[in-house]
Structures are given as C-alpha cells and as structure tokens.
C-alpha cells in the first residue's frame, strides 16, 4: 500500500531588501530554529545559511565575507556560502545548512516550511 506523503509547502517570506545587507557583509534573521545568516558578496550575490559554523557553532554572520566564502569569527574556518561546506583542509568536516533564498525585484525572500 502506498502512503501519500504531503510535502510541506514552501512559504516565501520577505525579510528585507538586498541593499539592507552591506556588500561583503551579512545580517541575521531570528527563526524558531535559531538565527539565519543572510550574506551579500562583493559582487552583490546573496546566500542564506543557518548561522552555525559546522566546527564549533560559531555565528557565521559575524565573519568576514570574501569572494563567495565567509571566515568564521571563532576559529577561522572558511565556509563556502553556496553550499555551507568548510573549504580547504577542512573540506568534508561538516556543513552549515543552506536556507532557500530567492531575490525578487531587489527583495530577499527566505523559503520557510509551513509545518
């Protein structure tokens, strides 16, 4: 017998304008699962990750953003913004979960689960 599993619908939630985040910077968005870090690179690209370094839980939103990476403020792990993965020698040592993010007409929309 097959069971129909209903996928939770994604709710796209406006959390601000792209330009609210400084270039090479990040802002925090509090959520029931902890802070979400929303990053903006020097090229103006944006990414969202859970604000937790895979190493010791450091708040990635507080790190220095360079290229398409952020350096964790606690111990200097370099995390790739697109995947949340540690880079270089630390590759494969864990991952900050990626949060769905879309940009529509300059606004930042985070993808949230309805349940």
């Amino acid at each position, binding site marked *: 017998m097959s069971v129909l599993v209903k996928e*939770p619908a*994604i*709710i796209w*939630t406006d*959390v*601000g304008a792209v330009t*609210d*985040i*400084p*270039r*090479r*910077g990040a*802002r*925090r*968005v*509090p*959520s*029931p*699962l902890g*802070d*979400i870090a*929303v990053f903006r*690179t*020097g*090229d*103006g*690209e944006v990414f*969202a990750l*859970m604000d937790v370094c895979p190493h*010791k*839980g*450091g*708040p990635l939103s*507080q*790190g*220095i*953003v*360079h*290229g*398409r990476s952020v*350096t964790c*403020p*606690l111990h*200097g792990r*370099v995390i*790739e913004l*697109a*995947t949340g993965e540690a880079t270089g020698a630390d590759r494969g040592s864990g991952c900050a*979960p990626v*949060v*769905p993010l879309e940009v529509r007409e300059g606004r*930042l929309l*985070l*993808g*949230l*689960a*309805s349940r």
Partner: protein
Amino acid sequence: MMTEKLVVIGNGMAGCRAVEEILARDPGRYEITIFGAEPRVNYNRIMLSPVLAGEKTFDDIVINDAAWYADNGIVLHAGRAVLAIDRARKVVEAEGGLSVPYDKLILACGSDPIRLPLPGADLKGVVTFRDLDDVGEMVRAADVGGEAVVIGGGLLGLEAAYGLARRGMKATVVHLMDVLMERQLDSAAGFLLTQALTERGVETVLSAQSEAILGQDGVVSGLKLKDGRVLPCSILVMAVGIRPNTALATAAGLATGRGVIVDDQMRTDDPAIYAVGECAEHRGIAYGLVAPIWDMCRTLAGALTGDAGAAYAGSHLSTRLKVSGVDVFSAGNFAGGEGCEDIVFRDAGRGVYKRVVLAGGKVTGAVLFGDAADGGWYFDLMRQAADVTAIRETLIFGQAITEGLSGLDPSSAVAAMADDQEICGCNGVCKGQITSAIASQGLTTLDAVRGVTKASASCGSCTPLVEKLLKLTLGDGFQAQTGPAAVCKCTHHGHDPVRRAIVAQELKSMPAVMQALEWTTPDGCASCRPALNYYLLCAWPGDYRDDKQSRFINERAHANIQKDGTYSVVPRMWGGMTTPAELRAIADVADKFAIPAVKVTGGQRIDLLGVKKDDLPAVWADLNAAGMVSGHAYAKGLRTVKTCVGSEWCRFGTQDSTGLGIRLEKFMWGSWTPAKVKLGVSGCPRNCAEATCKDVGVVCVDSGYEIHVGGAAGLHIRGTEVLTKVATEDEAVWTICALVQLYREQGWYLERIYKWMDRVGLAAIQDALADDADRRALYDRFAYSQRFSRIDPWAERVAGRHAEEFNPLSRRLEFAPA
C-alpha cells in the same frame, strides 16, 4: 508570384536591419513601406554617444541614406506617426489620413526612455538620451557651458556624461547603486571606471537618491538629492533605462507583456504581424542591446522568406562602453554561485583588470577593464560553451598567447619556443636573449631580468612567460629566490612593499591598492583586507574611510565575541583608576541587562561577559551616561595602561606613575596599531605594574624614567629591553608616542611589538628615535592621527551609526526554514 505588401513600423536599427536581411535573401518578394517617427533616414543609434562627444558627425552614423530607400523601391514615411493598426482590414493608419495596406506587418517600434516622476521633471533642459534631437539639445546646452547632471550610472548615462564633459561641461553622474554599471561590472572594475571617468572630467556620486529637480523660470537649475546635497546644472539627462514601446500593439489587441510577445519566429499572436528589436519580448526577455536585435532580424527575415527552419533561441549578452580611451567589456555572469572559479589578472602599469569566471570547465562570464581586446574571444568561448580546461593556465592572457601555445602545457610550450621567438613585444626581446642573460649574468629574479633585458618591463603582459623562462633556466633555484612571505594568497607582495607603495603612490583606497599591486583576486580575502585597511588608515589619517566589512568582528562590533556568540564589554578605566559612581553604573548595567558574568581583567579593568549583540548599544548608552568610554579591549590598538599607585600613595614610589599612566592613556587611546599594544607604568624598580613584560613599559627611578620596549607575557614570555632613559615626564610621553608611531608605520599587520623589534633590531629602533627632529616628526604624526582617533566608538553607535550591524535584518520568523 504576386508581390506581397510589407509594412515596417519603425525606421530604426531593428526595422531597417530586418528589411536589409529580407532584401539579401529575396529582393523582389515584397513591396516595402517603412514608417519612422524621426524625420530622417536610418542611423546607428548606438553611435549617438560619439556624436554627442563630437568624435563623429551625423553623416558618419547614417546606415542607409535616401538612395538606399530609392534603389530598393522602399517608400519611407519619415516623421509621420502611425496612429493605429486595423487588423481586420490589414491596414496601417498614419497621420494625415494615410492608410497603407499590408500582407505582412513588422513592429519595430523600439523603446521609450524611462522618465523618473521627480518633481520638476517637466522643466526645460531635462532630457533623455535616445535620439538625435536629445543629442541636439545636449549640444546646445554644452555650447553655453556650465554644469550637467546625468541621473543613471549605466552604459548610456556614462556615455552621455562623457560626451558632455568632452564638450566642456562639468558633468556629474548620479547613481543609485554603489558601483557604476553594477549589472555589468564587479566592484573592482567599477572602481577603475570611476577613477578613469574622474580623469576625463566626469564626477560620480554613488549611492545617491534623487529627490527633486530644481528650476528657475521654467528651466532646470539643479538636482536635489535625498541627503540634502544640491548639484547645480543647466542640463539634466535621465538615463535610467528603457521601456519597450507597446502602445500600438496593445491598442490593436496583440498580446503584450513587458514588450510585444513573439514566438521563436518573431511572430506575434496575429500570424500576419511580427515584432523585432527592443519592442519585442521573447521567452520573457525584452532586450536592450544591439547584438540580440541582429539575431532576431536574421530569424525574422528567414521566416518571411520561406525558411521553415528559422528560429530564434535567445541571445547571450555582452556590453562594451563607448568612452574614448576607457576599454570596458562585460559578458555573462560573474556572480556565478556554486563551483565558480575566478581567474584575475591585473597590470598596474597599463591600468588593466581582467576577470574571467569559470564553472565546470566553461567560461560563464568575463569583465575586462583597460584592455578589452579579447572580449569577443571570451564571449565566443562562452556562447559555444567550450571546455577550456586545457587552456586554463593561459586563458587570462588572451587569445594570441593561448593559441600560440595551444596543445602544449605552458612550461613545455615555453621550452619548445625557438630562441629567436619574441617574448616581449614592447621591447623586442627574444627568448634567447633572456635565457642567455639569466645564465651568463646569474639573474635570479624577475626584476633583475627586467633590469638587464627590459623584457616585461613595459606593459607587463609577458611577465608570466618571463617567469616561466626563469623557472626553466634556474630549476629549483628560482623558487628559492622568493623574498619575505606574501601578505596572503591574493598577492605575491610582502607587507613592506605594500606599505611602501601605499605611501609612495598615494594609494588611498583598497581597490586602488589591489589594482596598483596587481592582486590576483577581485576583492581580497579575510587575511589581506584587514591588513590593507590598517595600512591605509595608518598612512592617511583623516583621509581614508575605514572599511568596517574588512574588520574582524571584534573591531566591527566594538566588543569581544565569545564562544557562544555573545559579547564581552570592557569600559576604559584610565590607568586602572575608577570611582564609586563608575562601579555603581557598571553594577546597574549588569543587573539591568542580566549580564551573567562580571570579571576583573589583568589590565586593571572590569569585563562584562555574555552580552547579547542586540543589547550592545543600550549597554554602551548606560556606560556612556556614567562618563565611561570604550576600553578597546577588542582592538589591534591601544588596550590598557597598567599602573601602580606610585609616589601618590606608595612609600617607595619615586614618580607619579599613576598620573603618567593616565596621561599616556588619555593621549593614546583609540589609536590603531598592527597588533594590540599594552602599556605599564611602575613607580619604582619593584615594578608592581609589571611594566617589563608589556609592549611598552616605564619604570620610574629617582632620576627619571626608564623606557622599556618589546615585552610579552602571552604565547611567548619576554622581558623588555631598555630603549632609553629620560629625565622628565614630558620626554617620556614624547618618546613613547614616537616609538608607537614608528611601530605603527613599520609593523606588519598582526605583528606584536616584540616581533617587530626582533625583525628590525633594537638598535635600529633606537637610531630612529635618537635624533630630536626625527623623534619630534614621529610624535607629530602620531598626534595628528590621534585627532581622528580619540572618538568613542560606543557613543557613535549609541547615536545610531552602523545600526545595521546590531539589529537583526527582520523581526523573528514564525516558521522554520524549509
């Protein structure tokens, strides 16, 4: 076969190119009528910029003159507007009661420039930049002279501003974003463009919002910005984008979105009506550049001449800026996301910046500044989705070098070159000359080769080849020749050359340093950016604007981050002295914000631990109210001045060590240094302030003040060395400030004083401070810098500065991330 009637609405680039393409395929097939809104023959609209700049005349940019229309039997109604399309009767109705029947109709109505609905937008002298009439109005304004303002820092806006500047006006571009041409350029290229335009008399105002256009007697007189600034002008150009012209199509009931919607054959939802160019919308995209228009016209002509296979699949886009002497090219996407890789090449001598973005072995984007000759080549590689893995090493040097070496790995390619093959085109130096110079004169560095042979000494584009020759000729000996460690992976320069260049070349911003020193990344990394930020701040006090995004979090947040993401707050206690009122205020703050831990530090202060980031400004506000300022316990800068109670209280005290400590701290606080600086002042050789393990220490004696330097009590334990002894308190202050300034100017970022001293030697430091005039000059530079540094960063943030650093982006979300 009977001739069909073809009517084209639009005598611009799209309309006429479509006709040309049709004539080329099947000259006799149609009897052609063209309507044009402008009262003139077809001209090359994208060349209006050179006409404005006075570099071309209208005649130069005419594509099809009157004879072309006559020779091809085309009826041109120029300057006669089309009023309606009667689809039922298949007739176009125009001004003056003219009705022209069609079998096939092409809409090539182009687009209208967007006019911002600002107050004063209808004043005389407010123009757009679209057609020859606009150019005429700008030229007339320029003939009178004065100031011009252009709103919009995109391609067209910059070309307009450049043209007006060329005609002698003082032109200013006002741009909403923080980077010029931000859709096409990255910030490194945008910076170079801003600089190049300034050199050509075009000022730029970035991140600027326009509020109102000001006028006098119905004529424009200036632009008012949201921040209150007013830019005076006698002509104002709006170049903020275009909107496809769909009015006729909509009135005729054709399907429209942003533009007139067409299928892959450029057909609208009426099979007799087609649309091309800027008025058309294909697969959701309305194009505003010329290359896609040519593609569309080819397809359309095929479709109208019986080619069943003609289909348009959309276009890749590339952009070139038409400003004389400023070579700018951009194509594709440089913000590529996952798995992207940047290759960056800079040549400071020629002002070149090139960035090619690869993803999965293919070129996905390119930004070229200063030398855009290879733009077309990168664009072709991109369109063909060619695998460039094999040519990755040389890709950034362009087509000529890459194809010259094709099939060979770069080193063996160089090895395989004949001795008489030219390496340096600028100076005519062949491979053999270089290799024999290396061998016969024992050259081991690039600079030495440049000095002897001149190879790569001019434009520098053959530098990688010369380096490969060095490597080939010397083998491992070349590697051994590298100097002090590079600042980081973004550059091969060490700290000293970077610091020297900043001063000597008067580099005053981070992009300027990265270009002048040929950084190999677009915008640096977490290692070099904080270092450069410090070096610039030290070299140009009061001039350089601190880049907070290049600061480690502690210096950005002005508090120390803890393992759980909370912060610690340490107010300054001058010389370790405090008062009951300060202690009460600290206790009140700890209670009010439920601060979990309060600790006495080793530097004679009090640390409040576990403060939430959002609370920092409020905590500081209360501490400020009690007269306390930041203790900079987080800074690569002056931290504490530890003192003993000295002659004021102590029965052994020889001098007022507390007073001297407070005086030093009040003068030196807020200064940024390569690494943290801690001071200690002891009132007698019993040394209760532990001055002999501080970065700088003072040990008071009966006859004066011993000044110590280079102690450490952290990772390494080091006793200080005695720098000198002075007789008066004033001399002690001058000497210490001069010493710290010397360290500020010479130290490498993150290098503590004791390491700096190990590197340069105590004797060299003593020498530098020995001469009164030298010492005085160092002291004066420190004092000047302090005029901009003794500002409490907490008070600034309490007043609202950088609020975005402390506030969350949005309120708390109700749902968890998907």
